[in-house]
Structure formats: structure tokens, C-alpha cells
């Protein structure tokens, strides 16, 4: 059996890589959905939201087909990366939903004003869009991380439950319960609850203050 520390560190590593995958993709998708009148908008929204509606096992099985030994990405199944990928996919809908709300709160005319003042699209993103959407973006990243840290169903199917490689906190708890080692299981449960509660508190604070700020910003335009 892995030590508590091994499991917690692996969990953090899996979740971090999952966020490195999901956050840029989530931001790109949200930006497309909010700022561009694209065809197939509904399709993108539906596909992104699907992991919310499907049992995680189904996501895991789909990934297993893609990453397994008969799939196009043979050799990736049952790796730490597969665990990260599974977490990224289940976290993506929550991230996109939060990011969309955050970006919708940024007046597009501010971006246009910045363009007319000499800023290219990239600079506008970094100096206007992201700073103004910042609270919502951080909140989205937090809720995504919480979801990634608690991922179980998809992970166990595509990445298995390999100690030191794919055994994250939820899988560790599952293994210890199965082995009847309640004391060891409860230690991980406490870690799990602490991480989740801390993240949710920060998330809530950000969104509440973000909401107040949003109102003040809009009043600032004198519209």
C-alpha cells in the first residue's frame, strides 16, 4: 500500500497537469462562445457540457478506447497522464461555464477601445480582458481543480488503480475501504474534505466580491 504522502502528492500532480490541459482549452472555448458569432455554437456547448451529464465511467471507457492498445493513441492508457486527461475532461464543463460568465461581464467596447489605442489582440487579452474577468477566471480554475481532485469513475477505467502511478486520493480511499483499513481510509477522507472545503471557501469569496465589483464597473460606464 502507498503511503498517504505518495497518494496526496500524486493527486496534486494529476490535478495540476489536468488544469494545465483544461484551463487553456477552457479559456479558448469560452472566448469563442462569448466573443465570436460562430456556426455550430450549440454543438460546441453540447459537447463541452456532455461530461456533466454522462456517468464518468462512460467518459473513462471512451478514453480507454482512444488510448488503449487498439486505439489511435496506444500506450497512453494506465499512465499518470491518462489520469490527468480523465480529470481534465470532467472538469472542463465546469471551467467553461464559469469562464463564459466571467467573459460576458467584460464590455466588448473596452476591448475595441484598447485596439484603437494601439494594442494588438494578444495585448488586449492580457491587459484588458483577463484583468477584468480575473475573479471569475480564478473561480473557474478553483472549481475545476476541485472536480479534478475528486475524479474517480473515469480515472479507474482508463488509468486503473496503480499505486504510485494512478492511485489518487479517491482511488486510495476506495482501495483502503476494500481492504477494510478504515483508519487509513479516514486519514485520506480528512485530507480530501480539507482540500475541498478550503477551495470552495476561496471560490465563494471570489465570486461574491467579483459580483459586487461587476456592479460597480457597470455603474462606472454611466450607461
Amino acid at each position, binding site marked *: 500500500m502507498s503511503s498517504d504522502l505518495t497518494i496526496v502528492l500524486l493527486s496534486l500532480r494529476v490535478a495540476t497537469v489536468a488544469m494545465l490541459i483544461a484551463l487553456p482549452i477552457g479559456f479558448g472555448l469560452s472566448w469563442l462562445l462569448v466573443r465570436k458569432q460562430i456556426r455550430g455554437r450549440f454543438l460546441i456547448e453540447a459537447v463541452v457540457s456532455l461530461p456533466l451529464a454522462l456517468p464518468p465511467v462512460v467518459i473513462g471507457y471512451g478514453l480507454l478506447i482512444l488510448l488503449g492498445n487498439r486505439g489511435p493513441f496506444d500506450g497512453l492508457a494506465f499512465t499518470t497522464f491518462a489520469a490527468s486527461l480523465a480529470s481534465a475532461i470532467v472538469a472542463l464543463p465546469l471551467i467553461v461555464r464559469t469562464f463564459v460568465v466571467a467573459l460576458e461581464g467584460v*464590455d466588448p*467596447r*473596452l476591448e*475595441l*477601445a*484598447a*485596439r*484603437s*489605442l*494601439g*494594442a*494588438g489582440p494578444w*495585448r488586449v487579452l492580457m*491587459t*484588458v480582458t483577463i*484583468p*477584468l474577468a480575473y475573479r471569475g477566471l480564478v473561480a473557474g480554475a478553483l472549481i475545476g481543480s476541485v472536480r479534478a481532485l475528486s475524479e474517480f469513475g473515469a480515472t479507474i477505467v482508463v488509468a486503473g488503480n496503480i499505486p504510485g502511478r494512478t492511485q489518487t486520493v479517491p482511488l486510495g480511499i476506495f482501495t483502503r475501504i476494500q481492504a477494510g483499513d478504515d483508519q487509513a481510509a479516514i486519514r485520506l477522507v480528512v485530507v480530501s474534505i480539507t482540500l475541498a472545503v478550503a477551495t470552495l471557501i476561496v471560490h465563494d469569496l471570489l465570486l461574491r466580491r467579483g459580483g459586487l465589483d461587476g456592479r*460597480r*464597473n457597470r*455603474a*462606472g*460606464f*454611466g*450607461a
Partner: protein
Amino acid sequence: MISPEASRPGRDTNGVLRFSFTRVQGDFSLEVAGNFGAGITALFGPSGSGKTTLLNCLAGLLKPDDGEIVLYGRDLYRGSPKMFVPPEKRRIGLVFQDGALFPHMSVSGNIMYGRALTPEADRRVDVDHVVDLLGLRPLMDRSPGSLSGGERQRVAIARALAMSPGLLLLDEPMASLDAHLRGVVLSYLRRVHDDLGIPMVYVSHSISEVLALADDALVLSRGRVVASGRPSRVLLDPVVGGMFGDDPVENLLDGTVIEQGGAGQSGRVRVGAIEIVTPPMDRPSGAPVIVALGAEEIILATEKPSGLSARNVIIGSITDLDPVSNGVYASVDIGVPMFVELTQGAVDALSLERGQDAYLVFKTSSIKLLDAEPLVDG
């Protein structure tokens, strides 16, 4: 349709911006051509006529479908072969209706945003000068949310000017302002133009504003240019005038207080080389002020009248007589142009002609005074 003609003497009207393009958006089509000079051009037209779309195309925020846009001989847009300069490379300043200030930056952060992105060699405008010119020095550390409407508008103008634009576009900068603040922004705009010499295009709904500020006017209706040329000609044209209802024409004159008066004592204001007797006011002598006087409040006489109760009798010369739907507008040069509303009968009876001297007579009480500078900020 009125053909373009020479603007006021002394202004360089040689093409700063030349455009001719089309853009279709749903069932609205914009099909425009025109030429903007170095002065202030007013863009006039009912809402939905395409004024904002035109400005956005010039600034590069929207793409035309075909045609060309040329600024100082440089192609900004061309339909074929395809070529499009993105907004950040056009050096065209744009002032939005309500300012569109960055709420997460201070006033000075806003003003320096475009400045910091301007190559050293292109920084012709002195930011400190602009800040002083627009009276923004005390506001530099404030956040946009704490500013009044007039202050926000001035910050937006300063922000656009700080990047030394080759052309400044203003989309109804006074739409959301109170009447007395309009005078303030109006006089700031005039001062900015006189001082920095940056050509301006300015969207407005008010005939009086356009007459007071603009050297040229371009009138849009349903996505087409219906008239262009000198404002007094274009806007008083019966066809064009009919589009804007009965907005009474006011003369808006920049002046300086000589004597504030009070307690039954009239005030006096200097406008150019002349002196106007006004109602008493609470502004100290030396303060800038805008004298507003309705065109229909002025009596025109061909000989110097005497024994009048009206305190203002000013000589000038008639430069134009423009027939409008319900009479004639006479433009009289008294050092500054003044518009006087007359009936056709009066013009015939007095056999008025261009070049003739005339006395303008108006009562002190018909004068309204507008702030040219905010007395109290906030």
C-alpha cells in the same frame, strides 16, 4: 444634394481622409463616400443612419465589404486586392459615447495606455499639455467609477489624444451629458483642435453644436451621404433640416467674462473683438464662458438704430443668406459668425444682400450663459 465646397477661409481642407466603401449588415446597407479635411467635420444624421458604423469602419473595428479608405495617402482598407490595416496600426483615436474607460485602471493609467504603445518617434502630442488643457490634473489618481459624466468624457478624449492620433473620431461625445456640461466639452474640443491641430470627426444630433464647432458637415440618412459641405449651408438646407425636426438654432460663442454684474447690474462678456451685455452671472472676471443666443432672438437692422431698450447693438457684415423651409438664415460676421433667423418678407423689404453691413440687436435677457469650464467638479 449639396455639393462639397470650400470651408471657412484659413482652414486647410485638403484631404486628410478619403473613403468610399460599402458594407451590408443584415438588411441595412452602408454605401458612403467622402473626404475629411484638417478641420472639425460633423457627422450628422438620424439614429440608425449609419454614423457609428461609418466611424467603426474608419477606425478598423468593422470591415467594409468593398471600397477603399485612405488616411494621409496611406491605404487603410482596400477591397481588391484585399488589404486591411488592423485598428491598432491605424493611429486613429476613437472616443466612445460614454467614454468606455478601463475600470481597472486609474485616470492616469487610462491616459497612458495608448501612449505607452506609441513608438517614440510618433509621440507628437505632449501628454502633460493635454492633461492641463482638459483640466484633468486633479483627477489623475481617481478611478473612472468615481468620475462625473463630463469628467469621464474628458478622460476619454485625453486617452485618445495621448497616443498622438492622425485623426480623432468622436461618437456623440455629448449624448449623455447635461446641457451645462455640453458647453464645457464643446469648448474643450475647440481648444484641443486649435491647440493640437488634430483633425476631428464628430457625431452630433444638435444643429447648434455643429454650427458652433464644425468646419464641415456630412449628413447621413439610411446609410447614404445625402449632403456635405459647410455646416451652415448643409444643415439649414430645407431637405436636411426636415430630417431633424424643429431643433431651434442657437449661436454658441466662446467668451471671457469682463464684469460679472449683479443686483440689477448687467454683466459683460468679451467675444473676440466685441463686447456683449449679458444678464448678471456668478463667474469671476477672466473666466471663460459660452454665450448662447437663439437665432430667432436677434433683430437685424440695416441702419444703426437708436433709442432702444435692447442693450446689444453690434455691427457686422452679411456673409450669407440661406433660404430654409420657414424663412431665411442670415450669417452675419461680427468677428465670429452669427446666425439670424429672418422671414423672406423681411429680407425682401430690407432688400438684404450678401456683403451688406447690418446691425444685430438683441436683449440682454435673451442671452443664456453656459459654463465653459466646470465650476465645481463632481
